[in-house]
């Protein structure tokens, strides 16, 4: 699937770099776009009313604690929109708050990955998420 698109919504430069590296090293066949806050993500997905046209990615990796619009609000908008209501959304966050986990699932996240401080584990989890949702998962 060479034309697959992943939207990574991440405001931390180090986490962005590591995630991109994990996807690249894991040979996840997708082009990755990065939004650095919630508003950028919404503009990417739904257009900004100006030059930016809406884009529906094949996978959204979404942090929770984001500037301007937080990840849970972004998720809510993704599920409310007809074009993105079934787009796979994986929460990729350092939060292990029960509220964040429960709310993410209640709002329609497909999966929740906790960023660990274990570098190898983080890289492996991102690789698996990319391969699973881009290569393996097929909706009948």
């Amino acid at each position, binding site marked *: 699937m060479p034309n697959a698109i992943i939207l990574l919504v991440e405001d931390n430069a180090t986490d962005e770099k590591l995630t991109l590296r994990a996807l690249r090293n894991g040979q996840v066949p997708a082009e990755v776009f990065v939004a650095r806050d919630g508003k950028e993500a919404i503009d990417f997905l739904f257009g900004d009313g100006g030059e930016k046209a809406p884009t529906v990615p094949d996978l959204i990796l979404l942090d929770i604690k984001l500037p301007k619009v937080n990840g849970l609000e972004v998720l809510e908008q993704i599920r409310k929109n007809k074009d993105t209501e079934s787009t796979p959304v994986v929460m990729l966050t350092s939060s292990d708050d*029960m509220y964040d*986990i429960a709310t993410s699932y209640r709002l329609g996240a497909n*999966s*929740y990955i906790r960023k660990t401080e274990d570098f190898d584990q983080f890289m492996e*989890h991102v690789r*698996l998420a990319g391969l699973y949702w881009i*290569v393996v998962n097929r*909706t*009948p």
Partner: protein
Amino acid sequence: MRRGQSRLILLIEDNVEEEKLALKALKRAGISAKIQVAKDGDGALTFLRHQNRAVLPDLVFISSHLCRDGATDAIRQIRGHQITSRVPIIILSSSGHTLETERCRKAGADGFITRADEIDKYLDELGIAALFWTTANVRDEELT
């Protein structure tokens, strides 16, 4: 990952050769989760009814042809129960998108893996799915 709780994969498969193939894929991927095999939908439901809440499956694989024989009820019941309503259910299909696959999907399955093409690809994909759901994904702990 659920803290302090064991991981479990439920494989619903009545064909011995297909079961062997799936178990080979899980072994090849180095899956450490416990694997429970049920021969049909009734067997799966009996197993689930007797499980402790803390050791419910992280992932269910179901053979597509079982959806021809009533296993759709098992999928509906897994989906209909609060504790297992979000457990990923993946159809294992020997021939891609068939009528049986469609029946499984309508009953509430999430996706499918087919071995219509290459066997190695099938084993790899099954392994990636199992690894992703049993090592990377954090379940909603409120429900467990």
